[in-house]
Structures are given as C-alpha cells and as structure tokens.
C-alpha cells in the first residue's frame, strides 16, 4: 500500500503542475512572439547556442559521485545487520571503505577535485 501511494503522489505532481498551468493560462495574458520570446542575456543579442561541450571537470565529479554513492548504497544493508554480524562485518566494511579511500586519494592526487 505504501508503494501504491508513492505512485499516486508521482501522478499528483503531474496533475498539480498541469492544473496550475491551465488555470494560469485561463487567467493570465498570453501573447507570445517577437522579442519577448528571445533568450535572456542581459539585453544583448544571444551569440551561439548554449548547448555546448562543457568543462570536463563536471563529468569527473559525476563519476566520483557515482562511485561513492553506489558505495553508500552497498553500505546500507551492512549497517542494518551490523549488530548481528559483529567483528567480521567491521573488518569487511573496513576493507571496502579502505579500497574506496585509496580511490579518493588517487583522484585527489590526479587533481580531479582540485577543480581549477
């Protein structure tokens, strides 16, 4: 039942936005066209598109995030049962975190997280 409600809420988000856009379309003026629909660039005419190749730093941060977030996802089940697993669990989690920590240090030394 909990998960059914999750899907109901997802639907609700769509309905909310659609309903308010329709209400606002009825109430608000709507006269598109001309200079109004040009891209805002502080009064200047836009030069070139904005869909460009971006700084590779963001991509590398994304990769790092993926690794550490998946790691956290792996740690969750371990954390739940930790009290019954005991020392063996601590050692295994320790090894796991240690390897990832080496990865972080590697990325650090490679300058991924120095940004500039």
């Amino acid at each position, binding site marked *: *039942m*909990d*998960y*059914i*409600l*999750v899907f*109901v*809420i*997802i639907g*609700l*988000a*769509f309905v*909310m*936005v659609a309903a*308010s*856009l329709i*209400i*606002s*379309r009825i*109430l*608000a003026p*709507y*006269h*598109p066209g001309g200079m109004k*629909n*040009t*891209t*805002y*660039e*502080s009064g200047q005419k*836009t030069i070139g*598109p*904005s*869909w460009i190749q*971006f*700084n590779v730093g*963001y991509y590398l*941060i*994304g990769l790092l*995030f993926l690794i550490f*977030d998946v790691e*956290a996802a792996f*740690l*969750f089940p371990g*954390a*739940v049962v*930790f*009290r019954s697993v005991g020392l063996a*669990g*601590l050692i295994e*989690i*320790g090894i796991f*975190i240690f390897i*990832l920590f080496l990865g*972080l240090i590697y*990325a*650090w030394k490679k300058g991924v*997280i*120095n*940004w500039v």
Partner: protein
Amino acid sequence: MTAFSSFLFNYLNGVTANVYEPVSVATRAAEVWAHEPWLAIGWLALGMAVMLGFLVVIGMGLIYGERKIAGHFQCRLGPMRVGWHGLLQVIADTLKLLVKEDVVPAKADKVLHVLAPVLAIMATLLALAIVPATPWFQLIDVNIGVIYVTAVGSIGVLGVLIGGWSSNNKWSLLGAMRAGAQIISYEVSATLALLIIVLFAGSLQLSTIVESQADGWWIWRSHLAGIVAFFTFLIASTAELNRTPFDLPEGESELTAGFHTEYSGMRFAFFFLAEFINMFVASAIAATLFLGGWMPFQIAGLDGFNAVMQAIPPGVWFAVKTGGLIFLLMWFRWTFPRLRIDQLMGLEWKFLLPVGFVNLLFAAVLILMGWYFAPIPA
C-alpha cells in the same frame, strides 16, 4: 566537560519517553482495504489532502518567515503593508504569479522545459510524504525509509539540471551545471551521515528510528559520532538546498537567477515552492534522525520536569525541532559569505568525505564495543 557529560549520562540513564504506536496513513488504509475499500480510499484521500494543505501552509509560512527574518537581521521590518504585519503578502505574491504570463523562450526545449518543474515538485512531494510528523500522521512509512529519502532527494537534481539545460540560456546552463555538481557532491556526505544513524538504530524505517530514541536522542547517545554526523548532515543539506553560503547555482550577483532564469509565472512558483519545502524536509529529516523526531526532551531523575515535557504533544515537539533547524538555516544565510567553487568542492571531497568515512568506522567500533549510552532496543 565532565559536568556536561555527566549531565548527558544522567539524561540517558533509564528514562523512557512516552511510547506511542506509530501507524502510517497508508498502513491504516491497507488494514481496512479488504473489507471496507471505500474507507481505505477515504483515509488515503484525507491524507493526501492534509499533505497538500501542509505543502501550501508550510511553503507560504517559510517564504513569509524568510522575508521577516531576513528583514530583522538587516535591521529592517520586512513586509509590513499587505495585511497585519504583511501576513497577506505571500498570498498576494502567489496570486500575482498565477496571473503572470508564462513565457517560454523560442529556442528552449519545450517538453523538457515543462517537465523540469514537475520533477522538482515531485521529489519534494515524495519526500514530504515520508516525514513522520507525529505518531499518527505519516503518509507512507516504507521499511527502507532512509534509502527512500536519499533516492527521492536525488530526483530533485534532475529537475534542476533539465530545467537549466532546456532553457538554452547561458545563465541557466551555468547555474544548472554548478547546481548539479554541488548537489551530487554533497549528497555523498549526507548519505554517510544518515548511514551512521542507521548503524546505531539498526533499521531503515523512519518510525522505528524515532521509536529507538525513546530513551535518548541519537545525537547524545552515540558519543562524538552522532554530533559529527549531525553537523555533516546540516552542512551537506545546506549545500543540497543551494542556500547561502553554498548558493553558487543561483548567485544573484553572478548568474541573474541561475537555473530558473528563463522561468516565469507558475512554473517559477513551483521551483520556488520546491526549494522552500525541501528546506522543511531536510530540517525534518535531521530532526527525526538525530534529534528524536516527536520524542520529548527528558532528563533522568527530574520526574516533574519529565512529566511536563511528556504532556506536550508529539506534534509540537516535532514542530519545535524542525522550526529550530529551519531558523538555523536562515541564520546561516545572513552570517556566512558565499564560497568559491574550488573551496566548495574542496570542503566536500577533501574534508567532509574523509571525516565521514572515519566517523563511520568510529561509529562501527563504538557499536561493536558497546560504547554508547543507554541500552539499545533489540
């Protein structure tokens, strides 16, 4: 220091707060589903209606509060003209947004431009539904609560990225990329901080975690680990909310309005609302996991004091804790200057993340040795 820790120890010795049986609205509906389906649907509809009412009231209240608090921090009065002490200002603003023209730039990706606010508000609604406000009002109570919170939280960043990219505007793109990098970076630290509470409570279900704090909040009970985790979570969630001092994605002086530069009218309102409700959700989750949720504050030995504290209803406790954290976030905004982007990334990857790892291992050792205050329920 000894006085402080002995105070904590006293607090933690054998006082058990009032224990209620938390039942989520969804569970209640599921119980009656078999023989009385309409009653179940009624429960669900009522729950949803209350949640939407909550959404509007909290959203407006927070916007009003932010403006008032900002005003008083700067020796101004804030909104004063519309209604008593400007109370109707937010309603007037909402109506204004409703009747504003919805301008979509000609070069924008139209479908994604509409989809982005939907994603933003969806993430917010989903997160709001799991907040255990009182034992009797929690819309959904999934048994993987903490994972759910982090998972749903990362849908919001999709809304921001899609919104910024689809606008086809340089300000929006820069803002969205900064927001994306910042939110995903700090998400790691926030998850590690939550992990520590999961480690102590031994459960992912939010209602169970609240119940496990009946004889002491986790921030006290888990020695240093809980306090470090609490502050890590507070910093990380400030960054995830794009609030000052981490407001690079929408730094007004640099990027116009960041990722929502090209949004106007109601669609802008949805981003704005999502931002404020996210602030509430982050504070509520912090209050639930670290500060005992709706559990009252108790000190062992002071029975009269405890009785008074227990007489205060759980909803009030929850509201006070959450409200205090929200005030702290607003206070941050007028206290700290904005960080530079390399400082921002450095703080996360070079400081918070290593600290989070060390803290996690420290907490694991604490549990293994049994070095925490008060017995932990089996």
